[in-house]
């Protein structure tokens, strides 16, 4: 294996993008972006959702063709790249959604693009495993990842290392990491950072995308801020600070993300008694009051999302009772929505939106009976209501007929929230309401939640982002392996307290 640092002196610019432009159906995703990456640096790329980070990455990896501008790699100039070309130039990307084949082994996955061949040009399995082992060793992961293990049995963190090993297998000089920390449990973060630093010290250039600014100060050498498809600034991390980056990103100083608590809990809206869902949730009891924000915390698979789904009849309740406003809760999602009990689901692209349809279509979808008489739609009424909610939530661009696949993540999320706000809810369940959206859109969603509680609407907020639970909730219920492991009142909120309950540590074990 070649060591990159031998042939590329550091401080050499290995990738340079100049005045890149790209638009989709008349909407500018990138209007003027310039960016450069040196060998042996970690260059962070930050910006709100919709600022153009993903589009920029797709241009570098050859998935998109830019409309204008040029790409310089190792001194050669390109108008655009295609994926094969990009790979041959040593560009690799690790996305949040892995490109791994879950049924194949680690070694098979690592060698997927370049199989080691032996006699008769057949695949040399020994060499393949040896290569995988060697690459994993360089990542310091050889001790706990077996090259012959099937990928689906690995943890998320281990799969991520396999993705990085794949990049090393093609000897990537330019490694793009798209929010690698968003999917990792915090205990795997240090290992990831060590790996990234080692790759940098070998002389590779790393583009690191993250919404978590703390990480950037811990890890990166330089940082580039994108806003509205333009480069705002490129700074040495040592010369900047948190506040400056945020104000560059949002274009205004952001004082407090979480609006002050101004709600007073009223009567009990929802009561859950001894709720069980086959195989996932066991004997859960809790209640929610009008005007109250109740947080649901817990690691992935803790039963948190299943409880949310069971409340609106999207999961089958095995036993137990759900009492909503004094009566058993409706047992179909439509009836629940009719009664004002709605779920803003996690993962907007899978559960929230019909992506190939317009904003208007999506916002109307659960509310069609409001705009129709005997099943026939009254389009003037519909348009009026849709126009109001778009304006109210400041969804951009404010074009009702734009296809939702052309919206940024934050605006897509606003559409999902908006369609349920139109249903005049009495109790809103938010599951991961701010996953993968930028600070500006986050703050707006928090404001919206406060507004709901002021009107006496009850809110359940399920999230894996502890700061937002702490900032927004009146109490937090913590789930561990399908059971409620504890309830924390507002006075005792702390990340440690939540984590202790979420990981099953008993209080008396301390």
């Amino acid at each position, binding site marked *: 294996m070649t060591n990159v640092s031998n042939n590329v002196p550091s401080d050499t610019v290995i990738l340079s993008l100049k005045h890149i432009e790209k638009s989709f159906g008349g909407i500018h995703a990138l209007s003027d972006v310039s960016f450069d990456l040196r060998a042996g640096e970690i260059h962070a790329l930050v910006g709100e959702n919709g600022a153009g980070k993903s589009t920029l990455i797709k241009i570098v990896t050859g998935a998109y063709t830019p409309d204008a501008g040029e790409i310089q790699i190792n001194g050669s100039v390109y108008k655009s790249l295609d994926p094969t070309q990009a790979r041959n130039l040593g560009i690799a990307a690790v996305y949040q959604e892995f490109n791994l084949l879950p049924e194949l082994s680690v070694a098979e996955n690592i060698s997927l693009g370049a199989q080691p061949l032996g006699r008769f040009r057949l695949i040399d399995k020994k060499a393949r495993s040896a290569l995988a082992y060697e690459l994993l060793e360089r990542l310091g992961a050889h001790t706990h990842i077996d090259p012959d293990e099937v990928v689906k049995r690995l943890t998320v963190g281990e799969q991520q290392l396999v993705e990085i090993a794949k990049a090393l297998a093609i000897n990537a000089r330019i490694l793009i990491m798209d929010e690698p920390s968003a999917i990792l449990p915090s205990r795997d973060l240090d290992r990831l950072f060590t790996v990234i630093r080692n790759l940098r010290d070998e002389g590779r250039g790393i583009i690191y995308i993250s919404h978590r600014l703390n990480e950037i100060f811990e890890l990166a050498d330089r940082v580039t801020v994108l806003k509205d498809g333009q480069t705002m600034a490129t700074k040495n991390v040592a010369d900047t600070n948190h506040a400056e980056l945020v104000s560059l990103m949002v274009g205004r100083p952001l004082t407090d993300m979480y609006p002050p608590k101004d709600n007073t809990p009223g009567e009990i809206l929802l009561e859950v008694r001894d709720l069980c869902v086959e195989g996932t949730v066991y004997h859960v009891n809790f209640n929610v009051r009008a005007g109250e924000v109740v947080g649901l915390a817990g690691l992935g698979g803790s039963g948190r999302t299943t409880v949310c789904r069971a409340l609106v009849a999207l999961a089958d309740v095995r036993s137990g009772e759900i009492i909503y406003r004094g009566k058993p809760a409706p047992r179909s999602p439509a009836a629940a929505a009719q009664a004002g009990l709605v779920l803003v689901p996690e993962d907007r692209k899978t559960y929230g939106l019909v992506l190939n349809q317009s904003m208007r279509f999506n916002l109307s*979808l659960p509310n069609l009976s409001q705009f129709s008489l005997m099943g026939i739609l009254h389009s003037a009424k519909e348009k009026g209501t849709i126009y109001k909610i778009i304006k109210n939530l400041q969804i951009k661009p404010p074009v009702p007929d734009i296809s939702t696949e052309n919206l940024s993540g934050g605006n897509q999320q606003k559409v999902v929230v908006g369609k349920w706000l139109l249903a005049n809810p009495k109790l809103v369940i938010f599951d991961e309401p701010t996953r993968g959206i930028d600070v500006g859109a986050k703050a707006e969603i928090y404001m919206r939640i406060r507004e709901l509680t002021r009107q006496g609407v009850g809110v359940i907020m399920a999230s894996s982002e502890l700061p937002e639970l702490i900032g927004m909730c009146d109490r937090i219920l913590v789930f561990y392996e399908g059971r409620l492991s504890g309830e924390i009142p507002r006075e005792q909120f702390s990340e440690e307290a939540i984590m202790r309950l979420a990981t099953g540590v008993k209080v008396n074990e301390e």
Partner: protein
Amino acid sequence: MKSTITQSRSIRSYFSGFQTSARFVRGVDLAGQWAAPILIVAVLIMAAIFAPAFYLPTNLKTVGIQIAVLGIVAVGQTLVLLVRSIDLSVSAVLALGAVIVVQTEAGGPLWISFVEAFAVAAAVGLANGLLITKRQVPPFVATFGMLVFVQGARLAYTKGQASGTVPEILRAISFEQVGPIPAALIVWLIVNIIVLFILQKTRYGRWIYAVGGNPAAARYAGIPVDLVIIGVHTICSMLAMLGGLLLSGYIGYVDLRLGADYNTNSIAGAIVGGTTFTGGRGNLFGTAAGAALLIMLLNLVVVLGLPIHWQYAVQGIVLVMAVALQGFRQFLLSR
């Protein structure tokens, strides 16, 4: 480590090696949307030059009625494709209709046989829908099974040979003319107007597009996904029945092989018109144009005096080209 490392090239990379300009992408997109109408104009011009017999009034009438029959069946097929399903039993239902009407006419009053025919069609569609939603049978398998079953049932019912004459009323709504226009075309127009209204102006129409576009999101939005799919299959079967009645009214007798090509042709018509197999995309204007184009091409095979079996080649080519064009369009738009 003594082994060669080879770079494998995926199919995708061959595809993406292709440099495109924004203008080219727009061109392909427009071609995908307007392929059927543009080709119709081209075919009409070519026919005027090379096959003037195409424009003889009797031939135009034949073409018109055939477009109407296929057009009606293709409307049903479009609805089914919109919810990510497919219906391979339309040809069997279509053939069954004529048989029921013709055979019962001898006995009771005519309207009863019509009610019977449409009830049987609705039952077939309902069965398709129930198998697909409640038993999770893949649509391809469920409707193919239904095709075989209905064909078998028809043969058993007629004991292998259909007999009887087609009632006058079917001739009236199919072969007779309203002014210069065959009645069947007017029936086709009415069907299109009704279904277009359902798709554009009703809650059920939105549900159809939502279920096809993203079934999970539709479920989360409280849409009764199973009912939408069952309903669409029922409508599709009933439209196939209507197509069958018009077809027998036009032919004037009942043939056991009646309507065998309507599975491929209704799917091809919808796909040429821009409907996709992946659901949630498609419209009736495209389907109408797609059905018309296909019938015109098939007719030209006859008018030009080519061996009749060339019709199969035409059907195959149109279907494959249409799917290829729509796939390429999708690919370019996603870049």
